[in-house]
């Protein structure tokens, strides 16, 4: 970072215009998420009834299912952003794709972890390599970790293109993960979707829907901040580049004046 740019940024920071990626909207959204999260915890632990088979272990549904749904949303967003980058070379969409991938990897990791924790008391195992849903989700996670690894190799257009191709390949796996419990129902340990099959009722259903909404709002909040971080990183790089070019031009002019002066 060059000094003039840093100085300009510091000078322009103020109470109305804070030097952060926050805004009144994200602040409000963050507060709604916090209040919603408290409500989900209270309802999830003390409001929703236990299940006749699983007893209280069923309360894992309120963290596992939202994580899984937001994994789909995040990676679908990455796929859309990747298409727009490859098609239109849209920087905005490229940052969206990268942001969604980072948040999606977090949710996908949480889906695997919470599913595994839930599996121990209910399936009697943390993991089963033969299960279609589990293995395809792990593959999705690994592909998207690969996406982030490629992203970390550079910040040029070629890297964005490579990452976009990986993001699209991951998207092919999304419907396989989602539909696996239907397509291989008689071959898989994982149960079908309770939400779409209508096998939830009353406060259990309400709490799950609330949890999905709250984590969905968190996704929006995180996307907004992560997009702004991505935008700032890009601006910083282009700013540094602008200043480097300007400095080089200035040096060339000084050098030219010097040569002209020497020859005259």
């Amino acid at each position, binding site marked *: 970072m060059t000094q003039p740019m840093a100085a300009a940024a510091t000078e322009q920071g103020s109470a109305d215009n804070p030097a952060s990626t926050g805004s009144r909207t994200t602040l409000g959204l963050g507060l709604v998420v916090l209040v919603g999260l408290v409500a989900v915890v209270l309802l999830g632990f003390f409001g929703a*009834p*236990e*299940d*006749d*088979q*699983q007893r209280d272990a*069923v309360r894992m*549904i309120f963290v596992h299912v939202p994580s899984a749904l937001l994994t789909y949303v995040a990676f679908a967003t990455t796929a859309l952003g990747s298409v727009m980058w490859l098609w239109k070379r849209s920087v905005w969409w490229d940052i969206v794709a990268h942001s969604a991938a980072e948040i999606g990897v977090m949710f996908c990791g949480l889906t695997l972890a919470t599913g595994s924790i839930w599996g121990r*008391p*209910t*399936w*009697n*195992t943390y993991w*089963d390599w*033969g*299960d*279609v849903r589990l*293995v*395809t989700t792990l*593959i999705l996670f690994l*592909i998207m970790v*690969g996406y982030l690894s*490629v992203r970390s190799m550079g910040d040029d257009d*070629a890297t964005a*293109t*490579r990452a976009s*191709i*990986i993001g699209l*390949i991951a998207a*092919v*796996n999304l419907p*396989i993960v989602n539909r*696996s419990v239907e397509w*291989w129902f*008689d*071959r*898989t*340990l994982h*149960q*079908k*979707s*309770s939400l779409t*099959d209508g*096998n*939830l*009722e*009353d406060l*259990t259903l309400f709490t799950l829907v609330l949890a999905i909404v709250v984590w969905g709002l968190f996704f929006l909040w995180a996307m907004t901040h992560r997009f702004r971080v991505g935008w700032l990183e890009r601006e910083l790089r282009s700013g540094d580049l602008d200043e*480097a070019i300007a*400095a*080089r031009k200035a*040096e*060339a002019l000084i*050098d030219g004046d010097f040569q002209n002066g020497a020859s005259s």
Partner: protein
Amino acid sequence: MSDDLSPQVPRPTRKGRRWFPALIGVAVLVVVIGLVFNLVSGSLFFYNADEAVERRSDLGDERFTLQGAPIGCSIVEGFSGNDPVVAFSVTFGGETVDVVHFGDPAELFQPDVAVVLDGAWAEGVAPVDGFDGLADDGWHFASDRMRVKHDNDYINEEGYDERLVQSGAARADAAGACTT
């Protein structure tokens, strides 16, 4: 920054890097396609009880995974030496298989809730006192690992009695098998 402003010789481009995205793409695609074919083949995870019976001669003493719903009246718990053992019959697709599971049953092990078991066919009657296998075909499945394939119905206890009444063909088969 260097003071040398004379034209620079361009650095040689690494042509190999052009193939990088294509290589990653092809590798991941191969993995995904391979996985899908493996899944479609149907031999990846478990045989349902009817398939296991049908393929018994092919399977021999090979280890495989079996799936079926335990029949409530058949469940007998006991000991093999000092080790816990549970014997029961499972049903799926109209076939019944007698099972001996060596070890503690899973926490959610209960009638009509399908189990997925690792083990192998063994000839002879199940060696558990008091167990009267419903299949009674001279074979039993010796298991050493049990998972529970629970359903996706998360309804509280108020609806439990209703669910028991509506729990489907497996329960009806089980009731029929136990009374005959």
